[in-house]
């Protein structure tokens, strides 16, 4: 018997996120435009940094673990403004 392979979206949906209307992480795509290393794309465990076909990058803060990996691996000043979400919002772990 082999186990069913789940999609990344299903994987993320196993965690609870109380999304605040205001983004707690803001990515300046102008800075990212000429970043060739793109550390965030591989390292973000929630896969929130998605390269676009025109060489850009889109970021969505909603299903974020608030781990801090992205701002630590990114070497470009000003690319990521990072803070915690408003109290009571963001990820809520249950069996971790």
């Amino acid at each position, binding site marked *: 018997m082999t186990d069913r392979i789940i999609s990344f979206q*299903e994987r993320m949906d*196993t965690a609870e996120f109380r999304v605040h209307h205001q983004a707690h992480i803001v990515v300046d795509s102008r800075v990212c435009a000429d970043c060739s290393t793109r550390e965030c794309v*591989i*390292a973000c*465990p929630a896969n929130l940094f998605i390269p676009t076909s025109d060489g850009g990058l889109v970021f969505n803060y909603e299903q974020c*673990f608030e781990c801090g*990996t992205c701002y630590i691996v990114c070497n470009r000043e000003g690319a990521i403004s990072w803070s915690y979400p408003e109290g009571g919002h963001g990820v809520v*772990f249950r*069996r*971790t």
Partner: protein
Amino acid sequence: MSTPDVDVIVVGAGPAGSCAAIVAARAGLDVVLLERGPFPGSKNMYGGVVYPRILDTLIPNWWEEAPIQRWVTRRSTMLLTDTQALTIDFRSEAWGEPPYNGATAFRPDWDHWLAGHAEAAGAQVLTDTTVVGLIRDPGGAVVGVRTDRPDGDLRAKVVIACDGVNSFLAKEAGLYEHTDAKHYTLGVKETLALPKEVIDERFAVRDRHGVDIEILGCTGNVNGGGFLYTGLDTLAVGVVLKLPKLAAQKKRPEEIVAGLKQHPAIAPLVQGAELKEYSAHLIPEAGLTMMPKMTMPGMLVAGDAAALCLAAGIWLEGVNFAMASGMYAGEAVVEALQANDTSATGLAGYQRRLSDTFVLKDHRKLHRAPELVLSDRVQHLYPGMVANVAERMFRVDNPHPKPGLRRILNEERKKAGVRRRDLLRDGWTGFRSFG
């Protein structure tokens, strides 16, 4: 200067913060414990084993009430190559009875429980509150925090920063020299559901007994390690990955976990288990190399916020270091407020306690261990070499006679491209660190 609202503000209701609050509140101080999550533990994840003996004095007979999953009575260390596995497996019945050794537990349960003790001691626990900055007097001393609540400033005689690995408070105060990606590992984990009887059978345990498996050689090109722990009716399987190495290659974290789960030695253990929760968190991995200044006028730093987590390969202990450092911070604050001196000198009892106890003693002893365990040789060359030695030791190759161990060792060392000099040096470093 405005008067303080309370004696002590503790930021972060993780194990460090709750233990600090328990000690300070029990001494009669007016304590507020601030937590950004909707309940203590809601933001926290880890591999899965707590070593709670440090609570013996703080919460006598803690084992009668602590929310644990299983008592760890079996501890294994596994070396993997793509097709081989070498396991050292230890079990002890003594670890299944009071005062126990380690236990698997969920952090949302564990942290919630500990924060309950802080509340019972008289601390005021305020959840849903994110601290966004420090309030300092003209001389630079910390005199309170800003929160994201309306009228959110809160002043205190002392602030204890227990705000975890990213500690924006310690960084804002300038206690860290800099943030370096190579000092951190990313942990990702899957909590999987499986019936209790199936877990008991697969892992050869009974009742509330459980297993802790640390794994080396399962993270491909990325230096790191893996783990597999048993909950009551769940498994925790995951990896920790060195950040710069992770970011410099092509495999995503969840793919590395998937690779581990497909390994022939792991797959039969996790087969059929359903994903219940996927999670991630950082670990301050570099111990003494990265530790910040622990105190400044008006503020102390404890737990992961002070990089006190011990991450030395087969040891991954942070919760006990957090609980202990929180306790010692609490004690030092009580002392300082009795003497009415919250200057660096007044708070010096904290550093002294850290130095005199396992907290910094273990870090000093295992100083070289994280670097050794995450080194390229230990990560990429030794597992294969050791597994091949074992395979040839146990292989019956008749009509060939059995080769001698020395010959096998030498041949496999050469085959792996390991220089004798490096092997001896690593062995000596390992012996000095762990011995």
